[in-house]
């Protein structure tokens, strides 16, 4: 017979609303990174619930695998893909949102009323007897006896998933890589020999040598091809005129 102690009840009534609020926030926040952080919080509360429900091993695995590995993988991919128009919360299919919310209320109401009406026919037993020799030991006993075949199948699935990810992430070149020799030939047979020795380096000698300032040509004008095209497109290029010497001090003081 299972009796739930007061501390667990307090823990539940504090953490359960917080996890529901975080899950709702996951839907409502605009940025995908914030969604990921809220989901990480939901997963941590679930880990606490597992540990409170005598599933110590699963609670630890939940934190290590989900909040540790899976959520970091999500954040990693978010950083890789970046932020784009898909983050907008505007409705692209008209009428989708009311339908989705109505369906969700119906589905959730159905689930809740089903749980409320269903009876198990016996009282809750609790896991004190099953966990008598330790949760991990009891789980291992089950995993390597009754569930040993599913365990092996799952290992095959893991290997297949790793291979699949490698195949999907593999990027095949459409055109062969340009060799250094071909680049050199292209430089010398190009429109002008001006860049045959390579493009000029950025920066104004002796005044400012950062990568965002174009080099000066002999006639004093800026050389735009000395700056990375990315910086130019971003508008991060500085004007080199501000680093010009206003007047050169030509007076020589006699030293004694």
């Amino acid at each position, binding site marked *: 017979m299972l009796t739930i102690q007061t501390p667990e009840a307090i823990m539940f009534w504090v953490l359960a609303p917080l996890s529901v609020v975080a899950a709702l926030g996951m839907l409502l926040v605009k940025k995908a990174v914030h969604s990921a952080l809220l989901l990480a919080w939901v997963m941590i509360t679930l880990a606490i619930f597992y540990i409170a429900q005598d599933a110590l091993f*699963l609670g630890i695995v939940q934190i290590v695998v989900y909040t540790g590995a899976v959520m970091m993988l*999500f954040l990693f*991919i978010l950083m890789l*893909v970046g932020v784009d128009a898909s983050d907008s919360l505007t409705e692209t299919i008209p009428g989708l949102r009311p339908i989705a919310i109505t369906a969700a209320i119906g589905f959730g109401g159905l*689930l809740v009323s089903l749980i409320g009406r269903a009876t198990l026919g016996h009282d809750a037993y609790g*896991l004190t007897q099953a966990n008598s020799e330790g949760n991990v030991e009891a789980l291992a006993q089950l995993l390597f006896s009754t569930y040993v075949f599913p365990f092996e199948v799952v290992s095959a*699935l*893991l290997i297949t998933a*790793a291979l699949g*990810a490698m195949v999907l992430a593999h990027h095949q070149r459409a055109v062969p890589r340009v060799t250094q020799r071909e680049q050199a030939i292209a430089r010398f047979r190009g429109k002008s020999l001006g860049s045959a020795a390579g493009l000029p380096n950025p920066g104004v000698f002796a005044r400012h040598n950062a990568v965002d300032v174009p080099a000066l040509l002999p006639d004093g004008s800026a050389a735009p091809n000395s700056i990375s095209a990315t910086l130019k497109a971003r508008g991060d290029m500085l004007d080199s005129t501000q680093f010009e010497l206003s007047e050169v001090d030509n007076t020589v003081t006699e030293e004694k």
Partner: protein
Amino acid sequence: MNPYNYLYLSALLFTIGAVGVVVRRNAIVVFMCIELMLNAANLTLVTFSRINGTLDGQVIAFFTMVVAACEVVVGLAIIVAIYRSRRSASVDDASLLKR
């Protein structure tokens, strides 16, 4: 309090995850909502394991976690592959069969 409250919480989280899959446009957020649904199902399994006094539910929840990890790896690889060819992570943009 009785352990059935965990089942109500799990039902709520599952429903929220389902709404997220339908409503959100960013493929990665959709994927995170699927993870939320899987986690809600895991909470149900763990709660029933406790109610029934056997550890089988926890073993199944453990298998769910392993399968979810596989799913995340393959799914994110697909998202990255789609992003690489279309420069977008929106589920609305990947509608090539429609046109």
